């Protein structure tokens, strides 16, 4: 039973356009959601987060949206840059325990 799902294993976007990465979850006890970015041979790096009491958080080119009724969150990257090419993981926290999705590989083409 996978509690956090990223249904798109890969996404390809043109440089300058918007990248939208999606994540669905099933456990309504999750109270904090995070996005991590991972380059090959490195550990995941924190990108942006959102508390369950909010529906949007923005940080520069990155915005996370949370729809609690749909148990869905998304990460928007605008504009996308070639350096954004990486694997993106969605994670959900409950009492300090993080549950990760399987990741979406984003490729931004110049």
């Amino acid at each position: 039973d996978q509690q956090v799902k990223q249904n798109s294993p890969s996404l390809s976007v043109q440089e300058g356009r918007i990248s939208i990465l999606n994540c669905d979850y099933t456990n309504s006890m999750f109270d904090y959601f995070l996005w991590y970015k991972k380059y090959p041979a490195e550990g995941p790096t924190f990108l942006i987060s959102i508390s369950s009491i909010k529906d949007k958080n923005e940080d520069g080119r990155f915005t996370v949206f949370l729809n609690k009724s749909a148990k869905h969150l998304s990460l928007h990257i605008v504009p996308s840059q070639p350096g954004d090419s990486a694997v993106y993981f969605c994670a959900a926290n409950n009492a300090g325990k993080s549950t990760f999705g399987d990741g979406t590989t984003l490729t931004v083409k110049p």
Partner: protein
Amino acid sequence: DAGVTQSPTHLIKTRGQQVTLRCSPKSGHDTVSWYQQALGQGPQFIFQYYEEEERQRGNFPDRFSGHQFPNYSSELNVNALLLGDSALYLCASSLGSRGGTEAFFGQGTRLTVV
């Protein structure tokens, strides 16, 4: 600031052996979590240590055990290794055990069981 450091970076063990992986958290962090990441999957939570105690545990057998030292560094021990234990083992540090803050990850230890 050295960030989260893990050792060793790569390790090859034989089935049935035991292994110990090490993690030093980011300066100022008091909580260490361990994850197992199989190829093509996301990190799977093994357990979390805070104040030298195991606070949370994921769905892993008792062959997986850990320890946190007074300086907040941590070890992950795996006994009776199975071929299926081959994976990338990630350590993450954070401040406080209740969550709500981002975790900082090390580069991982690649364990291969043959």
